[in-house]
């Protein structure tokens, strides 16, 4: 079936950037989407079941299998413009549960499902790094019951999904202050990181008890130890030195190309402060459990449009 994938901006000031200088630019953008039409024209004929007998089954049908179709990028996306590192602030689980008169634990479980789907999609589309903001230092202020439930949920998900993630060749890294986490979760975290260390597919970085300012301060602490040992002088401390000591030094691509925050909030909330200098910020209105493949494709389309027009930036 033909699908219409258009970036549909919300009714805010961003619309000015879409419409300037003239509405014709919008038409050009919309016409670009119709590139999907020629590649799908045989798919249209294939969907007419009554035509199968008449056409004799050869002309007008695609023959890719379901698995191959899932692995293929949507026609709106270009492989060379895909971001290498995507960061996600998974906001809105509790609001999602409240809208359905459910306890907050249901919202977090629905959020886990959305995360699993996103990891699957990132593996298939060969995104190199996915960083997710699972738990902030400020989240300790939440009710103890909810915090306890979240810690148990992290443990359960890491245990249950380890086998599946190994099969998908996913490498897991956990960043954040692990000293405050339960002992069982700390042990599991070490085990999971060791088990998946040699995987070469998607690197999934889970930020638990993480704060951007904490990351910078910890980097300064480790540099201070090096200055104490005489490995470096205080006057030789540069941005590159700090960069090497941040928690994102566990990956080859420490700077996200794209940050997605769900639930419509338009702030970074102390996540990857240093690393987000040139990151495209995408604030999506849907709540995290409702964030699906279609929303992800929309965000990637906008990202690629801007990349095409203005090019990428290097830090």
């Amino acid at each position, binding site marked *: 079936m033909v699908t219409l994938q258009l970036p549909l901006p919300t*009714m805010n*000031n961003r619309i*000015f*950037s879409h419409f300037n200088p003239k509405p014709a630019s919008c038409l050009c953008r919309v016409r670009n989407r119709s590139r999907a039409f020629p590649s799908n024209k045989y798919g249209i004929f294939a969907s007419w079941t009554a035509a199968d007998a008449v056409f004799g089954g050869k002309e007008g049908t695609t023959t890719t299998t379901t698995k191959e179709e899932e692995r293929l990028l949507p026609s709106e996306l270009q492989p060379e413009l895909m971001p290498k590192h995507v960061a996600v602030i998974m906001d809105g689980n509790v609001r999602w549960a409240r809208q359905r008169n459910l306890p907050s634990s249901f919202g977090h479980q629905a959020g886990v499902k959305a995360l699993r789907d996103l990891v699957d999609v990132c593996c298939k589309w060969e995104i190199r790094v996915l960083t997710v903001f699972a738990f902030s230092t400020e989240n300790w202020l939440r009710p103890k019951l909810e915090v306890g439930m979240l810690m148990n949920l992290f443990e359960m998900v890491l245990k249950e999904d380890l086998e599946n993630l190994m099969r998908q060749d996913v490498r897991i890294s956990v960043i954040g202050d692990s000293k405050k986490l339960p002992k069982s979760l700390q042990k599991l975290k070490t085990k999971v990181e060791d088990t998946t260390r040699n995987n070469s597919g998607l690197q999934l970085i889970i930020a638990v008890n993480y704060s951007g300012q904490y990351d910078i301060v910890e980097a300064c602490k480790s540099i*201070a130890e090096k200055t104490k040992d005489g490995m470096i002088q*205080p006057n030789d401390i540069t*941005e590159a030195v700090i960069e090497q000591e941040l928690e994102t030094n566990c990956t080859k691509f420490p700077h996200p190309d794209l940050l997605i925050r769900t639930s419509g909030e338009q*702030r970074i909330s102390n996540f990857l402060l*240093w690393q987000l200098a040139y990151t495209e910020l995408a604030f999506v209105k849907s709540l995290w459990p409702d964030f699906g493949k279609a929303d992800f494709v929309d965000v990637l389309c906008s990202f690629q449009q801007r990349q095409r027009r203005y090019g990428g930036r290097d830090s």
Partner: protein
Amino acid sequence: MDKETTKLLVYESIDNREAFEHGSSLLIRKPRSSHKAQMLHSIYHPTTNEITSKKTKRHIAEFGEWKTLNLRQQRRDCEVGLNESFGSEESRERKPRKLQETLNETMMNGFMDLGSKILRVLRSVVHTSCVQNLFKLLLRLLWNLLHLSISIWYLGLGIALILQSYLMSSRLLKKNGVLNLSNLRYLAIVVDSEEARHTLRIVELLCWLSAIGVKHVCLYDMEGVLKESKEVILKELGDVRPLEITDERRLFLERKHIVLEFVSFSDGKEGVAKAASFLCSKYLKGASRGGEQELVFSEPEMTNALRAVGVGGPEPDLLLVYGPTKCHLGFPAWRLRYTEIIHMGSLKSMKYGAIVKSIRKFTMVKQNYGS
């Protein structure tokens, strides 16, 4: 059997085009079915182009009916013929089953042949190129109509927003009322360095902010173009003064003038590196006296260190980004923890109404700060 039946039998038994044409040409000679034969001939003849679906369907239905009638006629004629040729009763009794089987087989073959011929007719009709082209054109038209309707929708939306912005700008739209700026203590503007060279636009933007009631503004661009234009901007605005380091503690008491801060990339990551160097030096001095690392390296100490090296400043409540890309272009990261970020588009297309809308939207935001 009469001559007519013989011809029909010839037609039925041989299943190829030549025979059919031969048969149809034979049929043409028959005055009774000449009309039908001509129709059939027109369907199967390769040079015929004028075929319509309705006419063809009727032809096919009539053809089917005609064939059925002729098959029944064949059966009756066979039976009559056989009775005449096999005169004796004994012979008739000896081979009735075989004859019956032969008849049934003929009937079956006839029906199967009928079915395959109908399918062939359908295929030839559908494979006709003009129908395919028409179908493709129709789909393309539908697709373009869909695109057009969505473009018209966005055009209408844009016109409505422009109108709203114009009305806000001319103060005609009073329903916005007075903005509650109690939450907006510090506003930051990030401008793309290319667009920051348009100093007059920057001055106009600051005039608008002053008219709205914003008192503390931080201007940032990556390359420091705004820092270079600082004198020009301050001169153009008049009732404004730059932020000084000592002001920070008493900053929000200032009500008379707009306080402007000019920031560039060197105040961001480079500033943090300088602050790290400051803290390391402090730590080394303290270590020699037995001091603890935790006391030196903490978030409040880092804030103090940034102020000490001259890159401190308050955390903005709202950050407006003017430029083509939706990123903050290296604005001092330490100060962006809970800042609301709104992308305003290009500075060329800045609108007073858009700023009012953004500030109004900010005043309605409720932050939980993680709890």
